[in-house]
């Protein structure tokens, strides 16, 4: 079973790695998940978790995952916005944890937004 004592070991391992990690600059990509009542009820929690996992798994630098309140289109929740300086904001709607790997791979890593998941794909 996990104990507080184990945390010491994790701390030491992480500290060594942290010294070589560069700071995230102004050109960082922000992934923002709507986490108000509407987003949570629609399933935003697993979506946010999936983004955190995927970004960590790929060891992506300069990418932050954060949360925000109600974006104002509750019927399309879970909503995720990808904000990158110098580029137009991309809004993904009706997100699921399954769609996350594709968004990270195509959009965050390769720079091609996944058009079929975005708000503009809604008729």
């Amino acid at each position, binding site marked *: *079973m996990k104990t507080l004592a184990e945390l*010491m070991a994790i701390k030491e391992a992480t500290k060594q790695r942290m010294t070589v990690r560069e700071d995230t600059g102004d050109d960082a990509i922000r992934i923002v998940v709507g986490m*108000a009542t509407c987003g949570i*009820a629609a399933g935003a929690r697993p979506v946010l978790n999936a983004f955190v996992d995927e970004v960590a798994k790929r060891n992506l630098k300069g990418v932050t995952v954060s949360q925000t309140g109600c974006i104002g289109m509750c019927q399309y929740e879970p909503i995720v916005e990808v904000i990158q300086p110098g580029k137009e904001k991309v809004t993904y709607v009706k997100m699921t944890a399954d769609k996350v790997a594709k968004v990270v791979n195509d959009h965050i890593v390769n720079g091609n937004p996944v058009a079929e998941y975005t708000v503009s794909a809604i008729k």
Partner: protein
Amino acid sequence: MRELSLNILDIAQNSISAGASLITIEVSENTTDYTLLIGIYDNGKGMSEEQVKSVIDPFFTTRTTRKVGMGIPLFKMAAEQTGGSLEIKSELGVGTEVRAYFKTDSVDFTPLGDVSSTIQMLITMNTDRDFVYKHIVNEKEFVCDTREIKAILGDVPLDTYEVSQWLKDFITENTEVLYK
């Protein structure tokens, strides 16, 4: 909401919006008389008596307390449909305490769900706040306090991936033991 753990996540967001620096989440279950208490207590800015009344009524709220909206009414409904109740104690400048009482043997009882994911998310997304998570089952108790964890971690942030994963397992495993 499909899980009560999502209501907890939602109500705790209100505490964060209210500027709380310490948020305590209590889940206390008695398996012999089938009762469950879920409490969210904070030291945020608090509410006046009028505001407390308005957060319970989803239609009265809309403009003045938009940040609160449907969260409390949904949580109240989840409690009342089991034969339980919801109470809010709040004082301006002191903080707010929300308590929901459930009857777990009711057919309309919503499962507790993945509370460890909720707590992990609250802690790692709000590293500038402190959280105390207290889970009680009959006489057994588990407490997770971020002040204690931060003291061990020193300058290693709580939202480091390895720490976050440890946190999730730490809470899940120690909570499971309570039910054995």
